[in-house]
């Protein structure tokens, strides 16, 4: 396997055929989801608990305005800065306007009131459980890593799973190799004028390393470096006139897009963005949260534009550990809540729709009298994203103990 890597890259877009195609995987145990999603999965984690009720506000729900005196968004058509209409109940936050065209053209879907079936209001527990893929308990490895492990070992690319951040996120921890990169510009040897010779020096030292993990990973570095350098990846311009914000998320998504353009065999990319824990002065169409959302929406819109021609083979999913309280707190902010929003773009998703069951925001409907209740298990969404060719056995590996048949299918794809 090792020896075939480079040949494998060169041998065409085969590297992109990642999720199984052995006959047993064609047997669709999850019968209702018929079409597979994209072959490259990009996951953005909004750390800090993003307010789903602001991202996709239920502006048609009278209770919403009653509960949110300073943070509610104005219903569509009420002048500049009012929310953008999705349907009779829901709108899009005006700071997410860059995503609106993707909604209109059916590239983007929204899942509302989504979250973990075992809610916790602790950031780190919730992130742990969500990323482990095991609601209510911790696991040594994460759902994305188990996704890699459960697919046939066809693709041995150094870039099979990449996190654009200093550390691997919990979702990518585990036995399958995954690379964490701060940025492509950083992903080079900093040895001044003598880089080529230095690289050779390091490479031969690592290929002779006694320690297996060091030898293996050390050799990977230099193969990966060559892949990146051979195409001057960090300089590759965005396509289709896409303009990324000059923000951490914008830069990370631009790098992910470069890795995809370069056809390096990437199957999974993960990154995160913070600043969502808006306990104080959250703001409405302007303010703290609006600024975060503008960066978020502009970055994703640039990414989707950049990869326009590849979006059928590519699925981008956003998630956050939990939503925020329906009622505003005493500091013009919101506290830790439960249900929130996931966005799904590309991969053949049936976009322009809102998935999930909505119950009016009446106090009696709220979870523990305060939170948007979770009506859709986030794993249901991810299972559909992973695609219909996932056998039940494989889903059980990725999300142990989860039976997707126990809840109604969303039929987000095909």
């Amino acid at each position: 396997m090792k020896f075939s890597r480079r040949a494998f890259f060169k041998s065409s877009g085969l590297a992109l055929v990642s999720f199984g195609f052995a006959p047993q995987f064609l047997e669709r145990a999850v019968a209702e989801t018929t079409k597979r999603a994209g072959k490259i999965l990009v996951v953005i984690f909004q750390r800090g608990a993003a307010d789903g009720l602001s991202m996709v506000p239920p502006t048609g729900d009278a209770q919403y305005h009653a509960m949110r005196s300073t943070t509610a968004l104005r219903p569509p058509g009420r002048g500049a800065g009012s929310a953008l209409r999705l349907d009779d109940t829901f709108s899009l936050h005006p700071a997410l306007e860059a995503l609106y065209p993707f909604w209109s053209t059916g590239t983007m879907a929204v899942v509302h009131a989504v979250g973990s079936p075992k809610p916790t209001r602790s950031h780190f527990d919730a992130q742990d459980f969500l990323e482990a893929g095991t609601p209510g308990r911790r696991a040594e490895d994460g759902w994305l890593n188990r996704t890699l492990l459960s697919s046939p070992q066809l693709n041995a690319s150094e870039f099979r799973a990449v996190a654009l951040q200093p550390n691997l996120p919990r979702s990518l921890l585990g036995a399958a190799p995954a690379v964490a990169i701060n940025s492509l510009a950083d992903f080079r040897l900093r040895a001044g004028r003598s880089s080529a010779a230095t690289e050779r020096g390091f490479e031969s030292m690592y290929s002779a390393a006694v320690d297996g993990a060091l030898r293996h990973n050390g050799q990977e570095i230099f193969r990966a470096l060559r892949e990146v350098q051979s195409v001057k990846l960090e300089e590759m311009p965005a396509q289709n006139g896409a303009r990324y914000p000059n923000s951490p998320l914008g830069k990370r998504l631009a790098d992910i897009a470069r890795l995809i353009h370069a056809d390096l065999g990437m199957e999974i990319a993960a990154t995160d963005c913070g600043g969502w824990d808006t306990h104080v002065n959250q703001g409405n169409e302007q303010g703290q949260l609006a600024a975060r959302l503008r960066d978020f929406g502009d970055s994703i819109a640039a990414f989707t534009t950049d990869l326009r021609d590849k979006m059928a083979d590519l699925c981008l999913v956003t998630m956050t550990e939990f939503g925020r309280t329906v009622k505003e707190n005493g500091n013009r902010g919101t506290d830790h809540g439960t249900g929130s929003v996931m966005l799904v773009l590309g991969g053949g998703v049936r976009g322009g729709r809102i998935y999930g069951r909505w119950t009016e925001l009446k106090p009696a409907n709220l979870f523990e009298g305060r939170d948007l209740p979770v009506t859709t298990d986030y794993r249901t969404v991810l299972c559909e994203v992973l695609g219909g060719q996932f056998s039940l056995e494989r889903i059980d590996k990725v999300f142990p103990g989860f039976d997707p048949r126990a809840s109604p299918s969303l039929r987000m794809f095909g």
Partner: protein
Amino acid sequence: MAMRRTRLWFLALGAAAALPSCASNPHSLNARSPTPPAEVAVPSTHWTASKEAVHVLNRLAFGYSPEDWEAVAKIGVERWINQQLKPNEISDQWVAYKLRAFPTLTRSSAELEEEYAPPEERAKVLGLPPASPEAKSAIEAIPREELPQQILVELTAAKVVRAVESRRQLQEVLVDFWFNHFNVSAEKGPVRWMVTSYERDAIRTHVFGYFRELLGATAHHPAMLFYLDNWLSVREPDPSRAKPGSPRAGLNENYARELLELHTVGVNRGYTQQDVSETARCFTGWSIEQPNRKATFVFRDRAHDPGPKRVMRLSIPRGGGVSDGEAVLDYLALNPATARFIATKLCRKFVSDNPPPQLVDRIAAVFLQTGGYLPSVYAALFSAPEFWSDEAFGAKTKTPFEFAVSGIRALGGQTTGDVQLLQQIERLGEPLYRAQAPTGYPDAAQAWINAGALLNRINFGLALASNRIHGTTADVRGYARRHAAWNDVHRVADAFANFILHRELTPQTRETLYRAISEQEGETPADGEHKPIDVPLVAGLMLGSPDFQKR
């Protein structure tokens, strides 16, 4: 000394109720008769003295600095270890002097909360309306050294300075180990104002004491109470009196679960969900006066569940107060499962990722025999033949922090703890004091060795050797001048192999390095002159080499 401080600490917390329970505990501070012995006897190893020194400095210290290397050479490994077990007898004036640059280190949490209040708070104190232009400009006018971030900047800088330059190396290694064992994250809410005191008063004070003292100090500390939410945990309400619609207060099991799973007996070691809930009931009322203003321990009697409880095999009668939690800590601290769990973690830290089971058994036995007296446990570990075995030598992979610090030490470098070094360490993947999960950072290599991380290590070594990290300096050129013919590549490489790796290069590595160094691009020297050797590159290659990733 340590004992007196502990007692004062209890008094300072005003937890008067805690004292009687301590006195009635057979392992209490007063009743504890002679301190168990903690003397290391190094078994015969058939190693050279310099191999023994490498091993000891790689395990009990953050690698070898020229000073510590000399110290070990002078008095031998055995005496050096025994000195390290009594850190207060080692003079560390230079580091004490350097730490005076960080005023936050000596402040209480409450003082820090006042002096380094969030900018919005300070604007509010000035009577400026929130989010107003006046408030904004007032906030912008606050100098950076007065912002809350400064606390963590100083704490992190101090940690690096100590790790690099302290002569009490074992103490620093142990503070790092035990902090990680009882991890809190400075990123969770007001913990950033508490973490300085947490490390200083709960961890550092007790790493050479009894495990029970360490455990108790963490259990009482506001940083832990906040981080694992126990401060919010109150007895379950009487369902008949609950007001509909109001947020339901009740038990929070977060601390109780981690106390069992991570701090004491270890996961799946003979406790059930029922034991977790019962433990949580015992700790109801262990709270914080005011997390954002007055971060001190308080026991709230009204929040405490006074009913009878049973935790594993411990029965707690009705009517207890703060003593319920103390009784649970007494019980857990000397539980055989705890002894085993702690012994395993220490063996993994100091011996190998998969330590020999018979070693773990023996260390656990010492833990129990000495009532959890940690110096005796350490001494037994450092006297064990397994610690001095060929299998253990060089078997551990350095954590990102160990790698960075050992690199600076190997070059005989110094650091001010400047933020550039902290950023470099962060880039290696484990930002200090910011491990989010209560498990702390993983203790086996799998988690931190991946291709991206190794490249960051290689780049760190190159940056360090060529003095590209502001505030952190090492004179590799001076070393080369003193120790090798400056124009002979082989001799420079050999000198640095000896200096940085403390071993001879294999002929293959030597040849590899030789080629890498001689092939470097650069101006072609005039005829008859030698091309100058890129000395920092030689040192950088050594620091980034696979050998230097091991300890």
